């Protein structure tokens, strides 16, 4: 795992991010950098978190305690596409439970699991602030809204190509 190094342009970006905060307050860059790390390596392995700590000149535990507090960071390996569906009230009112059941059936996995081919992971998350456009799930940065069983199939078909 010694090849954990951000590409040069990401390292440049990180320098700019750290410059957003006063001197010696570079720890504030943890969350932005963890997002960049997860985009790069899919999940926040201990080695990745150690690397983030060295970039910020802080101890590894300071990164672990933050990464484990915020639910967006995957502390276990995940599939190529992580589907995070909203399980909170308003999405359920709009038929979310049925749609998410269809998603699980379609992929043959339960929440928290990854398909055998490593393509998809399903996670359930709390409110995604899209209640009027539910049911909703998120795949990386993209929000998929007004979900129906048919729409779920289309999205999975597209991503399976």
């Amino acid at each position: 795992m010694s090849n954990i190094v951000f590409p040069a342009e990401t390292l440049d970006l990180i320098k700019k991010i750290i410059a957003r905060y006063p001197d010696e307050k570079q720890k504030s860059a943890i969350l932005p950098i963890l997002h960049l790390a997860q985009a790069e390596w899919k999940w926040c392995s201990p080695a990745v978190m150690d690397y983030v700590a060295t970039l910020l000149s802080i101890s590894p535990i300071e990164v672990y305690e933050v990464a484990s507090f915020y639910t967006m960071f995957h502390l276990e390996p995940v599939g190529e596409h992580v589907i995070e569906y909203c399980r909170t009230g308003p999405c359920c009112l709009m038929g979310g439970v049925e749609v998410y059941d269809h998603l699980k059936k379609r992929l043959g996995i339960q929440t928290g699991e990854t398909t055998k081919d490593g393509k998809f992971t399903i996670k359930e998350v709390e409110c995604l602030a899209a209640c009027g456009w539910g049911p909703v799930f998120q795949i990386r940065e993209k929000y998929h809204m007004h979900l129906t069983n048919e729409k779920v199939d289309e999205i999975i078909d597209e991503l399976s190509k």
Partner: protein
Amino acid sequence: MKILTQHIDVPGIETIDVFMKNGGYKAVEKAIKTMTPDEVTEEVKKSGLRGRGGAGFPMGMKWSFLAKPEGVPRYLVCNADESEPGTFKDHYLMMKSPHTLIEGMIVSSFALGANTSYIYVRGELMYVINILEKAIQEAYDKGLLGKNILGSGYDLDLFVQPGGGAYICGEETALLESLEGKRGNPRNKPPFPAVKGLWQCPTVVNNVESIAATSWIVNNGGDAYAAIGVGRSTGTKLISASGHIKKPGVYEIPLGITVEEFIYSDEYCGGIRDGHKLKAVVAGGSSVPILSADNILTTDAGEKRLMTYESLSEGGFATGTMLGSGGFIVMDETTCIVHNTLTFARFYHHESCGQCSPCREGTGWMDKVIKRIETGKGRSEDIDLLVDVAKKIEGNTICPLGDAAAWPVAAAIRHFRDEFEWHITHPEEATKPGAVYMRPGASWSN
């Protein structure tokens, strides 16, 4: 009357040129070139604008608490960590018209004497963060941000900070902890952020919608803003409407219209979906008390309930609720209140930061006990047990998450106790797919 969303559907409004063609950034020019910071604050005070994140605290007053010691930086932090179930107005506003927020950030930062400001956006909204960053760059390019803004000598840098997925960071001191790169554990108050906030410096934390409204107040005056609305509920409010209505979405309303108009008029929700009847409403985000159809439309005194802070809370928690964040969740007769309450209890259990025992343990208990009732394994004593647990959380935690977790459970039992009882006494029937209890004689029952 539209203040924040007047131009929101203009094609290209997310770009600074179109935004400026539609009157954008005039408030920056007016404030910085013709007003003192105190004069801006004075207009905001006069406007009566109250914090739109949920607490409803007068914004001008909050600003006036800001300590101003010599040689110490002050910060404005925008709370865009919108996570209260039922609420998606800030998401909508920032996504469609990012400059509306940025203009308000410049005006507000000027009033507070902040030279560095941050917009803390929930991390899930990375695509919105990208939209904001692009818009901020446009503002820098036009000389509206950076050094010597519009030749005034005033400097301001504005940055966007992503969260990482934690409802608790919508609480202002947890947000500041998070912005410092820590776990989002709320701080004990005092000291308040106005004295010791971000990096122990004086800080104001305001919601997206509140900050966005300051531009209009600068342009038109605090009195003009205060002329909209009713009593102490001045101005307009973004309401996030979701659930069983014909037209879910975000609506800007003048405070003071009736709840009935909001639900049934074609201008707003358009009524309950075809063939169904109104059963219940959560009017201000998941944490405020749920009300039955009768209580939400009419107060105890028999008057039509209004969309204002005061009218929604009339009757206290016995028959009233709160405007909160304006997360307006509508439920028709097909809704199982027990299941809906379970999703809220599960939410707060998941989102409790774990710092205070009553919340950490209590939210877990409520989640477990409601789940037991929902799955047909409830015991007759469970309902009172829930009421007891909710009582023991309320008021006993560092931050309001404890109350926010307790209220929806207590209110669901207060107004729909028969539905919980039915689950316990009729477990086989209640656990059938789609089964919903029909209260005999209720306006929504068949």
